[in-house]
């Protein structure tokens, strides 16, 4: 076996593999809470982002004012971003927020393959926070409360003009069957 040939070939292989390693970076998204820090205002005015959603990405953890969420993998696309604001709520507390305000990004947000989308949340970039003077219309807020975050608004009717909720008249869920709960999805044929 020709040693020179082997060494040269292995070196070429290593260089090529190193070049080949430079493959795609995943597309990702972060949610940034651009409301003022709690230290800069009274705690009651602190606006925490309770949950967020964009296209195929969910931001399940609360994001305090001035903070940015961990990045999550997404795919390229353009869509509105949705979130729930929890004014005056302390994320460190063990209680659920007493009040949630559904909001939507003012514009569709887009991200190209390999880039990072920043879903920035403030009164300037979103619609829906009555305190900011930009309420959503009722149809848009219904979409958020019934389609995007239905669990948080189960049994409640949300008034977009006032940013308030009242118990729904007919109760949570639909009639005529047992609503499917987490983990209780009906079985699928086979195991894809």
């Amino acid at each position, binding site marked *: 076996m020709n040693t020179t040939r082997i060494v040269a070939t292995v070196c070429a292989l290593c260089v090529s593999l190193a070049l080949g390693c430079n493959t795609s970076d995943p597309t990702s998204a972060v949610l940034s809470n651009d409301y003022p820090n709690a230290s800069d205002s009274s705690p009651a005015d602190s606006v925490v982002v309770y949950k967020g959603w964009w296209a195929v990405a969910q931001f399940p953890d609360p994001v305090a004012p001035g903070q940015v969420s961990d990045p999550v993998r997404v795919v390229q696309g353009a869509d509105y971003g949705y979130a729930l604001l929890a004014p005056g709520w302390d994320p460190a507390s063990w209680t659920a927020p007493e009040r949630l305000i559904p909001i939507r990004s003012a514009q569709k947000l887009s991200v190209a393959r390999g880039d990072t989308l920043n879903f920035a949340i403030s009164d300037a970039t979103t619609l829906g926070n009555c305190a900011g003077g930009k309420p959503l219309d009722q149809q848009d807020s219904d979409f958020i409360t019934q389609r995007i975050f239905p669990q948080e608004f189960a049994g409640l009717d949300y008034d977009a003009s006032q940013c308030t909720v009242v118990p729904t008249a007919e109760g949570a869920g639909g009639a005529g069957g047992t609503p499917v709960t987490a983990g209780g999805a009906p*079985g699928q044929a086979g*195991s894809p």
Partner: protein
Amino acid sequence: MRNPLISTAAVGLTLLLSRPLLAQDPTGGATPPAAPPAGASAAAVAPVLRVHPDPVYPPDALRERVSGTVGLEIVVDETGHVVDAKVVQAAGHGFDEAAVAAVKAWTFEPARQNDAPIRAAIQLALPFEPPLASPPPAQAATPGPAAHPTGPAPAIQKNIETTLVLGRKPISAASSSAVRDRDFALRPIGSVQDILRVTPGLVMVQHSGGGKANQYFLRGFDADHGTDVALSIDGIPINMVSHAHGQGFSDTNFIIPETVERVEVSKGTYFANQGDFATAGAVNLVTRKSFEHSSVGLGFGGSPGHGSPSYRGLFIASPKWDKADAMFAAEVGRQDGPFDNPEGWDRYKLFNKITLALSPTSSMTFGESSYSGNWHGSGQIPARAVEQGLISKFGSIDPSEGGNTARHQLFMGYKLRPSENSELNAQAYAGTYRFNLFSNFTLYQGNPGAGDEIEQVDRRTFYGGAVSYRVLHEVGGIRFDTTIGSQLRSDDIHEELWHAVQRLQTDQLRGNGVHETLLGAYVNEEITPAAWLRANVGGRADFLGFAVDNKLATTDPANPKSGIDGAHQFSPKASLAVTPLDRKNAQLDVYVNWGHGFHSNDVRGVFANPSVTPLTRAVGEEVGARTRLWDRFDFGAAGWLLDLDSETTWGGDDGTTNVGPATKRYGLEFETRYEFTPWLAADGAVTFTHSQFSTDNANGGGLALAPKQTWSGGLSARRELGPGVGRVGLRFYGIGDRPASDDGVLVAPGFTQFDAHVGYRHRWFDIAFDVENLFNGGYRSAQFDTVSRLRGEPGIGQSLPAGASCGSKGRLASNPTSGAMDGHFWGCEDVDFTPAYPITLRVMATLFLD
């Protein structure tokens, strides 16, 4: 030019190992009998080889480094001359002609009976192996084109293939075959799945990320990941019993494709040595003992306009030792695929194997293989999500899907010929396996906030072995080929099922320890009363013992309880092969096969409610024929039927048992091959299958996802070109439309994919260029009927808003409790799919180091 590559020692040993058949021609006529008549005398003495000029190695085969073994039946007259020689097991590539030409020049000490010379027929196997040693110094000093066209110098062959020479032909079924590497080298080969596609009627599709096992379709089975197809490598099972993701899960990604020498295919339930999962069929991948050259290879590929290039590096060392064949192979690779969510499929593989020649009649093999891989999956996306523009067809609804896996195993084998007519094989293996898979099939149906992602966890050690003894003997002129054997497999499994959010476990749904041992014993008797008639009777008994330890306190009745149980099954088999036509330019074999078989079920389901049976019986029947005309046209046809006691599977995706009723399948299969010239051939295969539940649920017994038609074929050419050999292959394969739902309303569209391969092999390098999906077909690969909810769709149980729909191909799901459409939203039933790769280019360059 003659290349006496077959050494004296090699031929002598081969004859020693062949089984002589003595026969006297009472007529003494000038024309020897086509086959030895029955009634050989016990006092007869076999012919003894005296002069044996070596065959000429076919130049093309030598240049291409292909090997082969020709099975011959020759008649030696009373003077010791070979007066007739015919090929009974063809190897192609010019080997057959070379072997016949050589043995006709051989002379023997004639066979004798009562000291009188007699005419006799003997069978032998003549192996052709390219030289293992380097070229002679004169050529080695001037590598490259100067070394050709004569190729490397002759070399002494060290290790002779010691497979027993069978009767006239091995009894089989019309649908069974073996394909060697020289055939699948003419196809685009990027993974071992591409090799498995040589199996006529077996269609595989990529599924939810490259690191996950493929989807297999065979004989009317959507075999999911392998429930009804037994896959093995060198006899070691690949299917995983009671797997967290699905029964019989068969991930072949741990195999380095270049190490595979041939593929053995047997369809149906007719083979006594085939046990668990061999209902639709069995595929065994046989690895090489060694390579002709050590080599390094580097491959790049990708889909233009989609993602980034993939790469693959391969290193093979095959040292030349006196009394051993050895190979050490390593592969690394990364692949992103065409997906918007890059797969990032990193994989690392090792395969090492040493075969020691202990004596001329025994050998021992030691080996190891390792694999580790991780990836991101794009899941199975609902067709409506693409239709609505929510994502592209290469998009993802839950980009956190994916997983990681590893498989490490050790194996050893022992082979002994106690006598010239018998053979003993023994094998043992042990390994560890790890699997974590994050999937989200129902999306936001169960948990509208965080999603329905689940994690399936499987940790196991597995070990087992097999032993078989085979002996050929003759009683009253009737030849018997007896095989007895036993197989043992044991798995210690720990598996879990979790809800997860972006790969973080939230709540546990299942947690089980499982111990499962399957012991099988079989006997097979092949009887040949005449050259034109062979019969096969046999059977196997299998005993399954298992214990399940439920580690999770839950009141869910579907959750398996703890328990110990067992099951057994006896599976009789019988076959008949008749050869009504056996002439030089026309041979015809007709086969009739019958047999029982089984697949095991996930034993956790035995202790769940409703429970499943541990073993599901399958009964198969088949009638078929194979013919070869003009030494260049092969055609095979088979009609088959398979009854399965129940379509019972463990639904690993949701952690419940699915108990289905009995099913019946029947179909027709046709395959053909035609050699236009020695370097150009065409082949094709087509299957038609009807599958149904035995019980008609007012829908004709409709059985979802069962393939109805498959097809494959192509043109392949291989020819000397300058100092090397060029090769071209144009292939296609496809599957017809099939019902996605039992009622046939939802349809999984079929597809046909075309692939092309161009390669060139030189003494010092090989370069291959592949094009997959040549015409850039935008079809779907894996497809499933799934009820799911997209994030923006109405909440589960909410009143249906006006105009609510599930896309043009989907439909609103009914209430899961009442089964009725009640004006509320219960999800969308849609065909979820993984897209086929678009046109994909790949180049692989290999440099030979010795």
